[in-house]
């Protein structure tokens, strides 16, 4: 999508500047760079700073930020707004993310592009409300009821909070699906130097328009084009099982089968296009030990890998940037020659169990809960025990 | 003029009950869908108030000026 004049004006001033800011704040700037037109949210620790900065800055770029009465309303409002052609988002943490699940399913079923940021905190329930965790990995995957696939990305630095917001909005438009930025309280509240990108480096994906205007929920392609409200096309959007023209048909088994398999496949079949990982292979290429991590846990994990190498141990490292769809090919390739894989996570092993489904080496979950991230020493000890 | 669309009518009898001038009567034959649709007993009585047209849940009655 073309970047509007008001936003260009605003972004031109930012380009090249370096700010020492929170991950949450970087995420907010990322949303503005990504062309977010509309934000609706509800305060929650540790995500509130996203809403606060967007409320302050987005209007200057011509966008709108509102606070709704709850998270149910926030996600509802951004889905409604998305059907006018707007790029829309909300930001929350675990409890709010739980409340949003029904309408995330609605966005999946109606193929509504939108972005949901979840700055994960320690749960279940109120848990350790102000402490970070990575406990919502599987909720992001399976939180809403019914079969579906989902896209979720996990940043590991304040800079990446900004950068990945651009990817989130582009993926949402390309695949016509809700996209989740799976941050965590550690990354949301980390304060780091963040470089504001130059306007010339920013690209916004096009939201493909439907031809003919009526066929917005089917047709020959996995991702159908969209027709927005207010264009005279009498668009009918429903969360019930529907035909290509949007009209409800809940009685024909084939209609549901075709619709759901296509919605599932448009992400599953494009996995290799969507997935991004970051590989740091040991230079001698003979590592029998590997570490896979993501988000906050990937920082001490990468540090520990460096220390282990300094101590003379060959260790490979893979960071998952895309959490869902799962980086199956990359993980299998990474683990092919390994004896042991360590998976440090700030949960009780959600991704390590996913990895176990695909690899032949021994998978060791280095889980840590309690609201304090792993230390380099803890992960180093685990590596050395595995040697 | 009163027009009744037999195919849309579900025989709820609202028009029969509430016509201020008792223009309608219940028919003794079923329509295609098995409902007893109203028939016009006394079209001359109709003053065109459109109450039946507006009350009808089925778009099955229309009053025209012809």
């Amino acid at each position, binding site marked *: 999508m073309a970047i509007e004049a008001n936003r260009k004006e605003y972004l031109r001033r930012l380009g090249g500047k370096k700010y020492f800011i929170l991950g949450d704040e970087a995420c907010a700037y990322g949303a503005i760079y990504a062309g977010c037109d509309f934000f*609706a949210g509800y305060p929650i620790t540790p995500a509130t700073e996203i809403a606060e900065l967007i409320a302050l800055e987005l209007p200057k770029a*011509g966008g709108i930020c509102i606070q709704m009465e709850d998270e149910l309303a926030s996600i509802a*409002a951004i889905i409604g707004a998305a059907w006018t052609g707007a790029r829309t988002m909300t930001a929350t943490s675990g409890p709010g993310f739980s409340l949003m699940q029904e309408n995330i399913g609605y966005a999946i079923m109606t193929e509504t592009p939108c972005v949901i940021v979840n700055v994960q905190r320690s749960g279940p329930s109120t848990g350790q409300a102000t402490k970070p965790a990575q406990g919502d990995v599987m909720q992001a995957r399976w939180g809403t009821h019914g079969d579906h696939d989902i896209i979720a990305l996990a940043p590991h630095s304040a800079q990446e909070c900004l950068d990945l917001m651009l990817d989130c909005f582009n993926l949402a438009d390309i695949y016509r699906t809700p996209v989740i930025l799976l941050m965590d309280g550690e990354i949301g509240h980390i304060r780091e130097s963040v470089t504001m990108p130059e306007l010339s480096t920013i690209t916004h994906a096009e939201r493909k328009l439907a031809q003919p205007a009526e066929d917005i929920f089917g047709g020959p392609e996995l991702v159908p084009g969209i027709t927005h409200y207010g264009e005279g*096309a009498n*668009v*009918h959007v429903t*969360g019930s099982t529907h035909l290509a023209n949007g009209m409800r048909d809940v009685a024909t088994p084939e209609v549901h089968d075709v619709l759901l398999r296509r919605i599932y496949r448009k992400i599953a079949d494009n996995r290799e296009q969507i997935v991004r990982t970051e590989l740091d292979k040991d230079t001698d290429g003979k590592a029998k030990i590997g570490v896979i991590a993501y988000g906050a846990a990937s920082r001490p994990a990468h540090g520990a890998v460096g220390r282990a190498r300094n101590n003379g141990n060959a260790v490979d490292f893979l960071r998952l940037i895309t959490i869902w769809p799962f980086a199956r090919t990359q993980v299998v390739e990474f683990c092919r020659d390994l004896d042991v894989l360590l998976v440090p996570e700030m949960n009780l092993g959600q991704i390590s169990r996913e990895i176990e489904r695909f690899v032949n080496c021994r998978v060791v979950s280095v889980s840590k809960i309690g609201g304090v991230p792993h230390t380099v020493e803890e992960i180093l000890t685990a590596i050395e025990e595995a040697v | 003029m009163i*027009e009744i669309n037999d195919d849309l009518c579900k025989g709820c009898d609202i028009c029969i009950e509430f016509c201020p001038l008792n223009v309608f009567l219940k028919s003794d034959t079923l329509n295609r869908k098995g409902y007893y649709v109203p*028939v016009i007993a006394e079209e001359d009585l109709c003053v065109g108030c459109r109450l039946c047209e507006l009350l009808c849940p089925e*778009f099955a009655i229309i009053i025209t000026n012809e």
Partner: protein
Amino acid sequence: MGEYRHRLMDYVREEIMPHRFCVGCGCGTVLNAFVNAVEEIGLEPTKMVCVSGIGCSSWIPSPYFRSDTLHTTHGRPIAFATGVKIMRPDLTVVVIAGDGDVSGIGGNHLIHAARRNIDLSVFMVNNMIYGMTGGQVAPTTPSGTKTSTTPHRNIEPAFKVADLVMTAGATYVARWTTYHVFPLMESMQNAMTRKGFSFIEIISQCPDNYGRRIGKPTANDFLKQFRDDAIRINKTEGMSEEQLDKRIVIGKLCDRERPEYVTQLHEIIREQVAAVKREKTK
């Protein structure tokens, strides 16, 4: 009797008519009044977005009304409509949904939308029951009533939703019944043409899943009661709460001016954008 085409068929998705409402269901009458109101004020359906939730009356606009339609999750239509209206203030955004949807599961959105005075028209069809699921007690079911989930009797008082919305800050509130079709139509016209949060509570009938439980198995049983129990708001002076509880107070409950939400929101955007431009030219 000839097969005529109703003059308002252009306003409905004719290919799926007749609609699926039960015999004598009030939803059909509300659709009829709504379509007439839209035609009467010359509103182009292409300039409208109709939003609904889950329940029988949510089917009135979606799928039956031929405009852009958004059939949302249960209780959330007002929140979805808020997003639509903010991004497209030029479109007329109408919410039509039931009492359970709007005042039960979605009650929070209702009061906050009224408080904001966002320019939406909300037409709440109140049939006093959860009809689609087969006749369970609703927040609007009169106390004492036996329903499938209050088989002994309902001990809760019924919500006076229009009064609640008025107190919450809506600028136009009215209550009518499916018997009072002409004033209902006029009221819908007012709601859709004025700016601000407009709310019409439409007392309606569910002969199949409510009526048959309370000895009113036909639409006419209900409509006669609506006709006889209704009392105009301007005739209620001096009546006690107890007397009023036995009646259906109809008419325009309020019509007032307050700053509208979306207008103010866009004002802020214009100010902020202008400030950035000024800074640049400095």
